[in-house]
């Protein structure tokens, strides 16, 4: 009965789309094995193929026709053994991989294709054919590049997080959403209003900065004023993350999407590395921002004031620093940098409402590895994390690539509990 059903449905399909099936015979008529033999694109005529059952009972022997195809119909579904007679092949050709036996399965009412890939026989001692495979070092180079690429995006996120953590002591679990928000705002201008991505990104960064400013002015600042503890604030930030993430989903949707510009750029080869031009631009911009902000924190008056606020807000106020203003500047720049991170992430990957959440752990790892609260630490830590994730796939399965990076985090902290660039406090 089942067979009838299959036949019928196939027949329906066949009826409607009679013309759509150019290459193969009507599948309903086919129950067996078939294949096409080609050598360097040319069909191979007259190759001998014998089909036996799994148990070795001969079924049929065929020869490939002028198109190189052969076809064996069988009565019962099941496993079969297909043997190609190498002596029937053109001289100087052989089956790739060596074996000339295949053991395909035939399913009820279907034909299975059997492939014998043919190649010219290599002259003994000649160099093996170039299969386009890359060496270990080529892979390592590519992966290191990808690591830098990813690491710098993480570093941008980490810098923003670290700035806010540094000045307010807030472990902001909503930072991932600030990243997503930046990316999505740029999307709105890029896709929604049809602006080119670069101006859209600039607007998004400015808008995000303003939102960050507002966020502190209207929310976090008020909480600080009420003397809310940092732990309570941390939990509140989890609430904020949930709120923002779902609002973004509400407006943006749950699908993956991308910007209209620079989408799916073809890579260019630079030595062993293939990179899309946008990656190179992104790396340049990211490095520039990271270094400028890092130096600004070390050298400018506002930067020093930010570190002073981080250390001791009451004393900072006593020194004449407008603590709230500094914190707002930090929130604004932290959010703006987060937005940049989001845009870069969206550019190199895609946009999704969970993009920030998905990268947040790596950001935390980067910040921690570098040493909490130091700008250059965030850079170094994030690079280490990024590179480790990518390069570790040389040895570990890619599904576990984050494991390698996180394990490194733990191991490094074992030996340097204060992070790579962090400093130990004195006791007593």
């Amino acid at each position, binding site marked *: 009965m*089942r067979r009838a059903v299959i036949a019928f*449905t196939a027949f329906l399909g066949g009826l409607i789309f009679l013309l759509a099936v150019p290459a193969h015979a009507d599948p309903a008529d086919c129950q067996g094995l078939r294949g*096409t033999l080609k050598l360097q694109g040319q069909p191979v005529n007259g190759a001998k193929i014998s089909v036996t059952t799994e148990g070795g009972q001969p079924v049929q022997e065929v020869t490939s026709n002028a198109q190189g195809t052969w076809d064996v119909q069988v009565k019962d579904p099941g496993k079969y053994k297909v043997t190609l007679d190498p002596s029937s092949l053109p001289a100087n050709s052989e089956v790739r991989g060596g074996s000339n036996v295949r053991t395909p399965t035939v399913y009820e009412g279907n034909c*299975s294709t059997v492939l014998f890939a043919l190649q010219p026989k290599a002259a003994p001692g000649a160099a093996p054919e170039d*299969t386009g495979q890359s060496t270990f070092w080529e*892979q390592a180079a590519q*992966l290191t590049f990808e690591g830098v690429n990813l690491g710098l995006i993480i570093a941008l996120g980490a810098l923003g997080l670290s700035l806010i953590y540094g000045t307010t002591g807030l472990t902001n679990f909503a930072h991932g959403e600030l990243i997503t928000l930046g990316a999505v705002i740029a999307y709105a201008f890029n896709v929604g209003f049809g602006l080119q991505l670069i101006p859209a990104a600039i607007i998004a960064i400015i808008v995000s900065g303003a939102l960050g400013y507002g966020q502190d002015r209207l929310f976090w600042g008020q909480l600080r004023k009420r003397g809310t503890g940092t732990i309570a604030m941390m939990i509140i930030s989890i609430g904020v993350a949930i709120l923002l993430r779902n609002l973004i989903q509400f407006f943006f949707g749950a699908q*993956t999407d991308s*910007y209209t510009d620079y989408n799916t750029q073809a890579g260019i080869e630079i030595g062993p590395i293939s990179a899309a031009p946008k990656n190179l631009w992104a790396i340049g911009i990211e490095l520039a921002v990271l270094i400028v902000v890092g130096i600004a924190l070390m050298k400018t008056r506002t930067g020093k004031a930010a570190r002073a606020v981080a250390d001791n807000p009451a004393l900072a106020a006593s020194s004449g620093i407008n603590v709230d203003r500094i914190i707002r500047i930090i929130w604004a720049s932290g959010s703006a940098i987060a937005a940049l991170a989001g845009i870069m992430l969206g550019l190199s990957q*895609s946009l999704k409402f969970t993009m920030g959440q998905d990268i947040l752990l790596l950001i935390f790892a980067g910040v921690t590895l570098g040493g909490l609260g130091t700008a250059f630490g965030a850079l170094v830590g994030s690079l280490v994390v990024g590179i480790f994730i990518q390069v570790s796939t040389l040895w570990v399965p890619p599904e576990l690539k984050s494991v390698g990076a996180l394990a490194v985090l733990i191991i490094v902290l074992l030996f340097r509990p204060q992070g790579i660039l962090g400093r130990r406090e004195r006791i007593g």
Partner: protein
Amino acid sequence: GGGGDTATQTSQSAAPASSAPAAQGDGTLTLGTLLPQTGSLAFLGPPEFAGVDLALKEINEAGGVLGKPVTKYDTDSGDTTTNIASQSVDKLLAQKADAIIGAASSSVSESVIDKITGAGVVHFSPANTSDKFTTISDKGLYFRTSPPDKLQGRVLGDLVVADGNDTVGIMAMQDSYGTGLADQVQKTVTDGGAEVVERVDYDPKAADFSADVAKLKAKNPKGIVLIGFEETAKVVQELVKQGLPADKHKWYMVDGNTSNTNYIKMPKGTLEGVKGTIPGAAAPEEFQKKLLSVNKDLEDFSYAPESYDAANLIALAAEAAKSDAGVDIAAKLMEVSKGGEKCTSFKACVDLLKAGKDIDYEGVSGPVEFNEAGDPAVATIGIYQYGDDNKYATKALEYRTGNIAG
């Protein structure tokens, strides 16, 4: 599920009845949906909800079930990182649902199947592909219309071999859908005489996929099979970037990522010639138009046919059983899905039923013939090809129908 005891309902109907909500068989068919509104599979929600909504619209327009309009409650299944599905099931059971359509994720379904079937309610997933459900203990109440991995994997694998790819790379999303399909493709491809030179199971939540693609690149396969959902767009970006574009390598996709919306922003021709397999015998076009009338914002249509068929089948089974109790529906589901006069819409089918005929519902997602385990036994897989506009032609290259079990 339920092994072989689906047919003998007497033993089951006694056990769950004691603990099930009292209101079984209250005369109104109540459907609950347990589909993703949030979480990582949230993008699958809208088409699935739309499928159910469309079916319900048609059912109620045709006079409802047992003379009454069908009621429906929508709930969120979330994803596996939250416990929301369990909450939702509680709510649906409290609202006396007779059948629950969901969840999208096999893992989520697994976490609530005991609760649902324990209450004597039909658990009907439009999207579960894990083979676990074939053998799971479900009191005969679990069903699914979802694309059968096995057949699709076979068809896809055969396609890859038939196209002459002797070296194949597989990138599969690391979950039961992705790895299940990938296993099947890998087996078929290997049996067919090609070599799977690299198989990458990637974490769909990873921040980026460059390393995963770099692994493929290292082996430079002729054919590349991409198994996943919409995150495939990111993989495609990486493939192009790392020099494995579709015009140099043959790409293959599956129902989860063969999409007409996901890649349209990419430069013209990026996906030209890429082939994808989608279960279902009908052209998606007509049906998609109908779906858009239910939800005009729909961008993706994954699992909408399966959801639509699920709702129709439940309604027909209830009509056939003359009862809206979960166990009664379950008892009739196999019957209405096969063996009898063929019909393709609720209205047509219900008319036949009323005329006292045995029916065989033929769905949008395929012929939908349930086997003893509540799985579809037969399916049709369409093979589609992308044009240079990065959309696939709505006309399939070919349809293949086969037994799922093989």
